[in-house]
Structures are given as structure tokens and as C-alpha cells.
């Protein structure tokens, strides 16, 4: 549905929503971060948070199960699922929401991931579109996205000056509007037209562009053994910034954390892991199929722009620009992809 909400009524709506836990961007030590907030702490004016709300649906640490030894020394296990708790992520950017929809594909499929879906099903995503690009390295329009894309979103807000134009796309989204029906008005034809032109205008403001992205996946197929990866990874320091900040990277590790050795007690946990760490693929024998940083950069790029496209028909990149902004040595995924695209 499509509605108009005046900025005056906005706090009233938020107050209604606040019956469940709300995550929203707040400034924490000079950086925007998605945290649990009370209704008064919510704003729609913020730049891109350092970490996407991925961390809420796919937390860096997820408890899988508890294990212990019983009196006979035999193991007993108990499943640990996320708690029953509904929440709203308010102010997720369209790119980050698209990232969530990519994660949905990975954690769905033949083997549904109980932990992910328990969290995912309990969260409603309220997006705030980007009238102006929230980061100097935004390039969503180059990877099939847009500043007002609604992929993955339940609700999208567009700042129209005095009003918000509110669009809902799911039953979850409808529910949020229906909670405070009286606050919302039907949009007039002029408002509809304004929305359209505002969305169009926003697309022209993107600071970064990658042309002919379509050419990249087929091009990558022939570049597995290319010297590109050596050249482009020379300055890589093999840290995990690009992947940990990425709203689509989903790789993880599973390990047992012991809290007592005797009697045995502990937890099996999932933690984020990433393809840029050399121990990620290293076999117990010492053999490593991706032994150097060239092969690991290649994996990152090929996963995002070839393998994911082959499996899910999407780029595994939403153009948020975080990996560019935060790379300690200036490795710029747009520039790497341009070199791939133009490689002869």
C-alpha cells in the first residue's frame, strides 16, 4: 500500500511501533551504528552506518547448542535457538536490505538454517531511501540496485520534505501502518508524481559508477589464472574488513567453546569467518587450496560477480561502498572490476 505520513505525525507512529524492540542508526563514538533505541532516538537523517544491520539478523556469534557430559561420561546436547522476540530494523538502507534478501537465498534452499530464519522471521525491515547518497562510495545503481530499491524491505520511507511517502510491500509492512491507521493519508496524484521524480533524481546523484557490469561475470570465467589477481592484491594486508563490513558476505566458522573441562561443559557456536584469512581454507595437512592473497582476492571477486550470479542470478554486491571506504590500503572493488571488464 502507499500512504502519506506527515513529519509531525512521525513521532506518534514511532511511539506505536516501539511496543517491540527497535534497532535504528544512532551515533556511537562518532560512528553511525544500528543499536537498540527508544522511540525518541530515531532519526531519518544519517549517513551510512559502518556496519550494516546484517549483524542483527546474522550476528557475529550465534549459539548453536550446549553440550555436557552426564554422570556416565556420555555427552548430552541441547539445541539453543534465538529467543522469541519481534523487532524492527528502522532505517535500513535499500542496499543493506537487498543484502538481507541475498542472505535469505544462502540460508534458505535445501537446508534451511534454523538460527537465521528464527531471527529473520521475527524482524520487520523499515527502509529509508537515499535522497542523497549516504556514502562517497555508493554505487548501487551499478549492481542492479537503486537508492529506493525495495528488495528485502517490508516498508520504504521516502523523505518528501514535510511528509514521508510510505510504501509497504509485505503483510508485515502493512501491519506496521495499520497499527496507526489514523496517522496515514492516501497519497494525492501530485505526491505520486513527486515521488517518482524524486526517485529518478536520486539516481543521478550516485557518486560512483561501474559501467557495463553485465560484462563482468562472463569475463571472469576466463580470468581464473590471470595475473590480475597478483597485481591487484599486492597491497592487500589480508585483514577481514572488506568481508566483515559487507552486507552480503555470509561465511562462517563453527567451533566448540569449552566452559568446563571436567565435567565437560560448553557451547557450539557459529562465528563470522572470511575468505581473506589464510586459515579459512587451509587443510589440517597444511595444504591450502588458496595459498596466497591473490587467490583469496580472486575468490572474493569471483564469488560476488561470478559464482553467486551462476547460482542465484544476482551479483553478491549491493554497492554500499563500505569495502572501498574502509580498505586500509585503498583496494577499490570498482577499480578491480573495471580492470576485469576491460581485460584483453
Amino acid at each position: 500500500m502507499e500512504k502519506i505520513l506527515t513529519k509531525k505525525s512521525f513521532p506518534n507512529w514511532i511511539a506505536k511501533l516501539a511496543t517491540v524492540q527497535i534497532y535504528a542508526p544512532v551515533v556511537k563514538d562518532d560512528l553511525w551504528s544500528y543499536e537498540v533505541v527508544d522511540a525518541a532516538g530515531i532519526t531519518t537523517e544519517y549517513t551510512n552506518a559502518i556496519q550494516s544491520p546484517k549483524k542483527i539478523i546474522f550476528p557475529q556469534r550465534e549459539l548453536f547448542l550446549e553440550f555436557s557430559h552426564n554422570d556416565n561420561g556420555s555427552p548430552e546436547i541441547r539445541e539453543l535457538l534465538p529467543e522469541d522476540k519481534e523487532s524492527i530494523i528502522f532505517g535500513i538502507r535499500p542496499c543493506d536490505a537487498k543484502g538481507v534478501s541475498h542472505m535469505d537465498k544462502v540460508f534458505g534452499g535445501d537446508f534451511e538454517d534454523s538460527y537465521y530464519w528464527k531471527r529473520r522471521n521475527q524482524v520487520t525491515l523499515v527502509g529509508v531511501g537515499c535522497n542523497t547518497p549516504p556514502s562517497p562510495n555508493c554505487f548501487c545503481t551499478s549492481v542492479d540496485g537503486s537508492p529506493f530499491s525495495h528488495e528485502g524491505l517490508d516498508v520504504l520511507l521516502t523523505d518528501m520534505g514535510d511528509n514521508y511517502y510510505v510504501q509497504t510491500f509485505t503483510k508485515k509492512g502493512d501491519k506496521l501502518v495499520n497499527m496507526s491507521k489514523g496517522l496515514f493519508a492516501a497519497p494525492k496524484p501530485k505526491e505520486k508524481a513527486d515521488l517518482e521524480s524524486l526517485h529518478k533524481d536520486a539516481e543521478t546523484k550516485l557518486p560512483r559508477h561501474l559501467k557495463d557490469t553485465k560484462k563482468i561475470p562472463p569475463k571472469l570465467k576466463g580470468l581464473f589464472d590471470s595475473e590480475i589477481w597478483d597485481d591487484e592484491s599486492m597491497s592487500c594486508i589480508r585483514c577481514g574488513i572488506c568481508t566483515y563490513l559487507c552486507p552480503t558476505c555470509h561465511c562462517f566458522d563453527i567451533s566448540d567453546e569449552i566452559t568446563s573441562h571436567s565435567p565437560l561443559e560448553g557451547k557450539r557456536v557459529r562465528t563470522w569467518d572470511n575468505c581473506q584469512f589464510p586459515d579459512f581454507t587451509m587443510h589440517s595437512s597444511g595444504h591450502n587450496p588458496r595459498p596466497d592473497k591473490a587467490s583469496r582476492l580472486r575468490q572474493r571477486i569471483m564469488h560476488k560477480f561470478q559464482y553467486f550470479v551462476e547460482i542465484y542470478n544476482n551479483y553478491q554486491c549491493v554497492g554500499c561502498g563500505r569495502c572501498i571506504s574502509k580498505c586500509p590500503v585503498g583496494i577499490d572493488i570498482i577499480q578491480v572490476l573495471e580492470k576485469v571488464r576491460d581485460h584483453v
Partner: protein
Amino acid sequence: MSDNVYIPKLSKIFEIKEEVTGARAIKTFRTQFVENNGFSHKCGQCAMLSVFGKGESMISISSTPLVKDYLQFSILKTGRVTSALHEMQEGDVIGVRGPYGNNFPLEKWKGKNLIFIGGGIGLAPIWSVLQTALAKKADYGKLSLFYGSRTSQDIVYKEDLKELKNDITVHLSIDQKEKEWEEYVGFVPLNVLDKKPSPKNAVAITCGPPIMIKFVIQNLEALGFKDDQIYTTVENKMKCGIGKCGRCNIGMHYVCKDGPVYSWAELKKLPQEY
């Protein structure tokens, strides 16, 4: 609990057999599910074994699916989890989840001669399919096995192999000469070249150390085997077993889910990342 793919099923180790001792120790474990919640597998599939407190390790199931009341795993002691497994006693309980991965297309091979070529612990994944074919011997042509290890001490399934000789042709080999050894001395690929199995109406299934597989395939090609007549298995580091944790991929293939069984024709198309 049952629909959570990460929760292992408790299984009791009821039999442990010491296959090889020393630096390259191998033990064979037979396990039974503690509750009646087990699974049935296909030849070539793997299972994720848990030693609680140590972690998980992906191990191929070496028993044939025709045996319903236990699963068999032959495990080389390599790292944290496998060392812990080697310290376990009969009666101890571990976790098992699975089965994972694809399988050998045994149905497709009906009527064909099957040549199994294994090295070291690589006999384990072959064992499942070999035993299955053997049990349905009438469905297949001639069965034969090439198997080699570094020394005679390193041979797994020693007694089973002796028995197997009554049923099929078995070509054993060890890498270096030993006093009482009467069979072939030399690497497995050379033994294959020496015995010259015919590619006619045949499928070769090879499993072992990567370097052995590489030369076995080369030699099979030299003997006239076509790419789709050669099958092998691939392994990579794994954590989830279900194509999500992101580390075992070779190109777009997750070995845990889309592998571990590949024909050489299929494997050739994938990048060298294993």
C-alpha cells in the same frame, strides 16, 4: 529439534578396529544411532562427526547403504577432531549429522566393468561403493581393485582384502620394497599402467592423495579411458556441510553439497582449487 540441520544425532561407537598404527594411524569405527532417528545414505556420501568439546570433522561413510544397522568410518589421525576420535573407546558417544553430498552413480554403471583404484585412506570412500557393487555382483561386469599404500603396515582393511581376493581381482602395491612382499612395488599409478585395465565398457573410480589421483588419471587417459569413464572424489576444508559456510567451494561448486564425487569430465571444467 529434528529440523535443525546443525544438530547432530548422538551415536554410539560399538566397534573400533585399529587398522594402522604409528605416525599415520588409521582406525575404523562402527556407530549406531542412540535413538531411532538415523538416516540412510548413498555410496560416496559423507557425514559430519562431532566430538563435543573438540569440534566437527567431515568423514566419508565407508559402509555400504545395504547395511542398515550401523555406519562405518575409517579415519586417519590428522588433527584436533580426528585425534580425539582415535582416543575414543567402544561405547563412547559421538555426534553424527548428514548424510552430505552427492553420490557415485552406481545405477548408471550397471553392466559395466568397475575398476576401483585407491591409495592410503582413499580406500574408505571406495569401500562403500565396492561393497555395494559386490553385493549386487550380477548387475555389473568384472570388478577389480587396485590398492596401494606407503608400506605394508599402512594397508587398511587387511583381512577384508584377503577375503575380497576370493571374489574379485585385487592388485596390491606398496611404495618401496619390503622383505616378504610378493606383490607390486611402486606407486599406484604405475601399478595401473603395469596391469593395463581395459577401458572397454569400464568405469574407473579413484580415490587417494591428490598427487596419486593426478597421475592415476593421466595413466588411465593413456590407457584409453575417456573423461566420463573416470570418477574421483575431492575434499576441501568444511564446516557446515550444507553449502553455506563458504570455504569448500571450487568455483561455483560447494564440495560438501555438490561434491564430493566428480567425473573427470566434470572436474576438468572446474578451476584447480582443491
